[in-house]
């Protein structure tokens, strides 16, 4: 009987398993809505990658903030968004521009959270994008003609905007918001893909009368941050949208928001139809370090005790990777991606934090990692073929001085200052590791003198691609971490590379263009990086025609 049950569970799980790999197309921000960033294409592999050569380059013409987006490719057309909400549609074989769209921003406008855009979403011939002035726009993907535009909230009032790619699930455009370092109450919104009409809002901070509201002191819920500044994931079989919620505000001072501060620093699972909360898991109750849980949520099937289990993998800014059961929200494990972590002593068997080391008011305190994170937002990749999760990590510390601060709607709300300092072992820098998802054991690690700030791409050719601060875009052997190929694009890497194919030819594409808040922060510690040139171009590589 038990065996029968086990067998039926196995079959059931196999049927429900979500294939998150990409093939000819790269249709969603994370590859597919399960955020694997894994291409099943294997024409380029460890044996021939050394012959990889540039096929074409597209210069976007706007260097401000670098190029941080993930290009999408659908049926031979590449769509790439840049700073200031410009969108280009390119022939994915030649790089020829098919159409371009320049979003009209207000004439006088300040963009506190940076001018960049990290991607668009496309479905049913419609391309959607969040804007710097907190609108969502939809374009005709064939022509670039604007179809609809809706203001989520006045950017001048909320001090917030949208830089992340939206997620499209079941005809709904689900889109987050920045504002976690401002006096603002975060949310997630769903709009109808066809008409732009608002469908639901999930407040990341519960209002009066709602469960979880009691975790906020006084009026602090009105200004408590909880931004949703990256892109979530979607499991169609469960009908659940997963989103990771950012830090509470003020970042470093929690004296006027006593309590757990739900649902900041939490993973939330929402019903895609209603936006209602199905479950949540809070990584950091009452965060006073600015440890967003905002990064990507990778939906994988991993065998646990010989049974395949639907899990999610999420790297948090505090430097821990969390693995949860994504049906129930149950904590499975957490393991560090950085060596230098001193804000806690560890994570307990139920996911609880052990030994908190909090900043104090008026006195500098050494905290590791720095505010830039044990990893920045640049995404990891899950290879089902290797059974490994590939992610970067950063070794750096800071001196934080907390200070009491009262909120002013829509204005910055940090509650402290910080300065980057070396790690106690004087070995600051970055690395990319291949990790076993349940043990956190690193099969290999690639070390680099600066933080690695570009996303990771994994392919079925047993290759791992990413780029570094000095402009090298390179390929590693997924099994050993050995560098097999590299190409200098002339500007550092802060975006997300992809793979696609047209007419049977596999391409690897990467944004190149140094910039961003964390790249700026690096100058405090590595002054020479001030001289690293900005850029904004898409580089596309393929094997020479005769070699494939």
């Amino acid at each position, binding site marked *: 009987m038990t065996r029968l049950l086990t067998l039926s569970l196995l079959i059931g799980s196999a049927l429900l398993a979500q294939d998150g790999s990409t093939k000819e197309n790269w249709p969603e921000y994370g590859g597919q809505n399960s955020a694997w960033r894994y291409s099943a294409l294997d024409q380029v592999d460890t044996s021939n990658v050394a012959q990889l050569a540039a096929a074409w380059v597209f210069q976007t013409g706007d260097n401000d903030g670098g190029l941080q987006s993930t290009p999408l490719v659908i049926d031979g057309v590449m769509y790439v968004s840049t700073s200031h909400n410009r969108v280009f549609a390119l022939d994915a074989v030649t790089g020829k521009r098919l159409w371009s769209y320049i979003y009209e*921003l207000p004439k*006088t*406008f*300040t*963009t*506190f*959270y*940076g*001018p960049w855009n990290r991607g668009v979403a496309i479905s049913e011939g419609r391309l959607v994008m969040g804007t710097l002035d907190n609108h969502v726009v939809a374009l005709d993907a064939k022509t670039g*003609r*604007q*179809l*609809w*535009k*809706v*203001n*989520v909230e*006045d950017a*001048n*009032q*909320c001090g917030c905007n949208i830089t992340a790619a939206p997620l499209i699930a079941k005809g709904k455009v689900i889109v987050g918001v920045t504002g976690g*370092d401002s006096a*603002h*109450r975060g949310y997630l919104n769903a709009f109808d893909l066809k*008409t*732009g*009409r*608002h*469908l639901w*809002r999930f407040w990341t901070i519960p*209002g009066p009368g709602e469960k979880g509201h009691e975790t906020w002191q006084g009026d602090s819920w*009105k200004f408590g941050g909880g931004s949703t500044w990256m892109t979530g994931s979607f499991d169609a079989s469960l009908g659940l949208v997963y989103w990771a919620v950012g830090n509470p505000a003020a*970042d470093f001072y929690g004296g006027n928001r006593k309590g757990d501060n739900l649902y900041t620093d939490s993973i939330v699972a929402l019903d895609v139809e209603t936006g209602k909360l199905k479950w949540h898991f809070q990584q950091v109750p009452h965060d006073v370090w*600015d440890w967003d849980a905002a990064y990507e949520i990778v939906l994988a099937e991993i065998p646990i005790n010989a049974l395949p289990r639907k899990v999610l993998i999420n790297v948090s800014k505090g430097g821990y990777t969390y693995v949860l059961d994504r049906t129930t929200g149950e904590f499975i494990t957490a393991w560090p991606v950085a060596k230098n972590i001193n804000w806690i002593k560890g994570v307990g068997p139920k996911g609880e934090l052990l030994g908190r080391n909090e900043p104090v*008011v*008026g*006195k*500098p305190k050494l905290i590791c990692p720095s*505010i830039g994170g044990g990893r920045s937002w640049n995404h990891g990749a899950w290879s089902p073929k290797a059974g490994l999760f590939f992610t970067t990590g950063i070794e750096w510390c800071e*001196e934080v*001085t907390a*200070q*009491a*601060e*009262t909120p*002013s*709607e829509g*204005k*910055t709300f*940090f509650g402290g*200052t*910080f*300065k980057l300092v070396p790690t106690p072992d004087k070995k600051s820098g970055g690395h990319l590791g291949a990790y076993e998802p349940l043990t956190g054991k690193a099969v290999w690690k690639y070390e680099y003198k600066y933080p690695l700030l570009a996303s990771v791409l994994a392919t079925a050719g047993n290759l791992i691609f990413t780029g570094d601060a000095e402009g090298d875009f390179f390929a590693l052997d997924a099994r050993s971490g050995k560098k097999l190929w590299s190409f200098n694009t002339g500007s550092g890497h802060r975006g997300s590379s992809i793979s696609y194919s047209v007419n049977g030819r596999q391409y690897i594409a990467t944004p190149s263009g140094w910039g961003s*808040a964390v790249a*700026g*922060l690096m*100058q*405090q510690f590595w*002054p020479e990086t*001030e001289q690293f040139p900005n850029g904004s171009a898409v580089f596309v590589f393929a094997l020479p025609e005769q070699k494939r």
Partner: protein
Amino acid sequence: MKLAIRVFFFLPALLLADQAGTSLGTSAVVARGDKLFAQGCAVGYCHGSAGAAARSPRLRGRTFERDYLVKVIRDGIPNTAMPAWGDRLTDDDINALVAYIQSLATASGDGPAPSETASLAPPVAVKDSDLSPDVRQGRELFYDPQRLQRCSNCHRVQGIGTPVGPDLAKLSRAQLAAEAVNALKYGRPRRVQGIVTKDGDRFPAILIERGPSETRIYDLKAIPPVQRNLPTTEIQSIQQPSGWRHSQAVQSYATDELKAVWTFIRWVTERK
């Protein structure tokens, strides 16, 4: 013109402040600037500690013209991350910040260790003293960020909101004198029309522009309104009246709250 007047009043204040700074010793002014900088400028997305580089440019070890600094702090730099601080800082504050930033000109590129500063006072709040409690309450309700449905979804007042509906600062005396709350609750604005598309969708809308190939509208079926560009050939008919009532847009407000909102609108109109 408005800017010129501001500068005219602004400069003497700065000069006075500068003189005071000199006679009292500039170190006190610089120290004050140091505190203000640490609190408002040396934050994550902006400048680094003590003018070190961060997302925004390094200020240490660089020379800036005084007038340039004053202008940038007060007015911000459009289309960049540098906001205007003119509404949040006093002239003395700006003067102190300028003195502090100028004091960094001879500093080396690396920032010093953060000074051990005690807990700072809250930032300067926007002065509300010239507003009556009713006006203040109405203003809060008008822009209330905790409501999905709020007045500023469809009206822009004092630069905040989406200008879908009429400019409330330009209401006539007759309109102001009318029984306002009833209008807010039961009014049927004539400019709202009913659109029927060829695929059978019916919705209330405001026509922005009807061209031969494209018709631009605000779709009012859901809040916030959606600006849509429909191919003119997709529109079956445009009907008037639409049956839409203003009450649909103010359902989240109680009658007392609408009264307060109206007090705020009167105040805006009269100021104009």
